[in-house]
């Protein structure tokens, strides 16, 4: 049972059920779109348009427009792919891990985190597609009866597992997210006075009733779908890690990669949730729902995960030394620590393993501005981690005659910025048109976790 006395209230301000309905549906039912929304949408669209130019350039000319070469054949595209996939892990981690662990503080954040997952995974998916060079042959990645044999795809390749795992992850996350919104769509349908909105949200709600039997089936189906999706969080990023670890390149060929990548994904996902929720609670005045205690809880999780990241980095370095392989040792002690990409390597260590340790201090953990800044540092640090893994390993392998440095071209930068624009635009549309907090779940925990009685007050 949740103990208000020990954990504190989850929804502040002694809300009633009706208040929650009003607060969640308010921004959707409002006829005016706020100015900041238009401004943000304009910036995001501009970024997206630049990205479309990058795509166009790549498709019409080819991957020659990128800074890749024979040695560094994976560049920004793979770095950004892994980075986005990592961010895309937050939604499921939030919704499902915390659901299984009975962490009730997830309810005001899970919907937004799931939306983040959907858009981040979509952004991630664009990179392998465009990396093929011939995007129009992308369907070759799927096994279908063809006239070439039929020659099937290589079912033992981590690259094909990736295609399957990510498509599955996107499908399952989307369905879980959508099903969770149906009761809230019904609530909007029954509240709105606009006929068009009533029609649209009525269609989206699939004719939701909210009867006892309906809720029972809903809860059962949602729990099963969530429970089934949970292992995907582990498997998707393990498979992404195997794209690297199954290769023999020094710095990649390591059994630590799958767990290391999964932890890294949860780390960057939680950091992005923090970044996003700090902005959302401010602009939508949701401080009573996403309370300081929520942010504190995420910060604590990040401190712990940051420690795991630190241990993983140290373990990698130790194993490189312990292996006594000159190539492994070269990668870690020369190429990364003091080589051409030393800045990226040390930025990764500082941003991921050291800066988040500041959360040990209560003063920093409870200072929203500091928390926001640190969350940005983690996002950057995780990007550098993927840069270090991809570029330092590939640029200097066994034969010095194949050594080649790498720097991105404008096209690559444009595509990356474009996906950022796509992500932000997606989140903006979500905030404007869909219920951004799970109103029905908030109502479900309200009485148990947020009603302040005389005793609670005395205790505090």
């Amino acid at each position, binding site marked *: 049972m949740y103990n208000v006395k020990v954990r504190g209230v989850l929804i502040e301000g002694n809300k009633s059920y009706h208040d929650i309905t009003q607060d969640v549906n308010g921004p959707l039912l409002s006829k005016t779109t706020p100015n900041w929304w238009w401004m943000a949408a304009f910036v995001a669209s501009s970024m997206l348009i630049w990205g479309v130019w990058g795509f166009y350039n790549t498709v019409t000319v080819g991957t020659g427009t990128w800074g890749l070469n024979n040695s560094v054949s994976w560049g920004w595209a793979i770095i950004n792919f892994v980075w986005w996939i990592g961010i895309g892990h937050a939604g499921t981690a939030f919704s499902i891990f915390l659901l299984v662990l009975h962490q009730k503080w997830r309810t005001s954040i899970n919907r937004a985190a799931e939306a983040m997952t959907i858009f981040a995974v979509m952004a991630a998916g664009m990179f392998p597609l465009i990396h093929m060079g011939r995007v129009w042959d992308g369907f070759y990645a799927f096994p279908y009866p063809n006239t070439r044999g039929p020659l099937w795809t290589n079912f033992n390749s981590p690259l094909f597992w990736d295609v399957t795992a990510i498509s599955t992850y996107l499908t399952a996350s989307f369905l879980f997210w959508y099903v969770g919104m149906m009761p809230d769509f019904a609530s909007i349908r029954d509240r709105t006075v606009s006929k068009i909105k009533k029609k649209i949200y009525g269609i989206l709600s699939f004719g939701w009733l*909210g009867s006892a039997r309906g809720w*029972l089936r809903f809860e059962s*189906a949602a729990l099963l779908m969530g429970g*089934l999706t949970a292992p995907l969080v582990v*498997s998707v990023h393990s498979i992404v890690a195997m794209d690297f670890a199954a290769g023999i390149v020094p710095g990649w060929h390591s059994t630590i990669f799958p767990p290391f990548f999964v932890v890294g994904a949860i780390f960057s996902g939680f950091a992005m949730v923090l970044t996003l929720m700090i902005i959302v609670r401010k602009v939508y005045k949701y401080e009573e729902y996403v309370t300081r205690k929520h942010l504190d809880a995420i910060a604590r999780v990040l401190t712990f995960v940051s420690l795991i990241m630190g241990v993983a980095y140290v373990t990698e370095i130790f194993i490189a030394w312990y292996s006594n392989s000159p190539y492994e040792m070269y990668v870690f002690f020369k190429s990364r620590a003091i080589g051409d990409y030393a800045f990226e390597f040390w930025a990764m260590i500082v941003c991921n393993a050291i800066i988040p340790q500041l959360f040990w201090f209560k003063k920093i953990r409870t200072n929203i501005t500091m928390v926001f800044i640190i969350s940005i540092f983690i996002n950057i640090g995780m990007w550098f981690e993927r840069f270090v893994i991809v570029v330092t390993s590939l640029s200097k392998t066994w034969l010095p005659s194949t050594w080649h440095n790498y720097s991105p071209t404008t096209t690559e930068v444009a595509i990356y910025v474009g996906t950022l624009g796509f992500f932000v635009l997606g989140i903006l549309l979500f905030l404007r048109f869909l219920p951004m907090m799970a109103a*029905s779940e908030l109502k*479900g925990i309200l009485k148990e976790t947020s009603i302040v009685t005389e005793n609670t007050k005395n205790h505090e």
Partner: protein
Amino acid sequence: MSKQNQILGVFNDPDEVSEAVGKLLQNNIQVKDVYSPFPLEHVWEKLKLKTRIPYATFLYGAFGTAGTFAFLYWTSVINYPLIYGGKPTNSLSFIVLMFVLTILSGVIFTLATYLIREKMWPGREVNMPDSRSTDDKFVIVIEKDKNMDDEAVRKIDELLKKSGAVEVNMSNV
């Protein structure tokens, strides 16, 4: 009056609803359904509602595992046995795809089952007994059958109000 064949007890509090359902059942009054803004587990217990969706999900998952293995075996061993890196064509690494597609099959078919059982589809027209039940009200629906005289209706009304109902309405939905 003859068309209004449902009695609706409207409540403000989730715990009062489940108590009221218990009291109605004790008095041998059939509760047709309870509409609420969020799931009420105590009401399910009292109405003895059960769902078999978990069993169905297990079957869908098993189907996903077996189906994926059958497909991989057929493509890689029977239809076009191509050797990759000297590995056996019937490979242990099939497990990865079997794992992922088991989940996909389970998720998609569970959702489909749920929607079919609830007869839900995009654009389905609904008539809520009381549309406030998606906001902050909890509504107990009691079917008024032909045998019920005014006396019986009055008794139900009294019982509902005593258990904390803020309103008792008649409806024909």
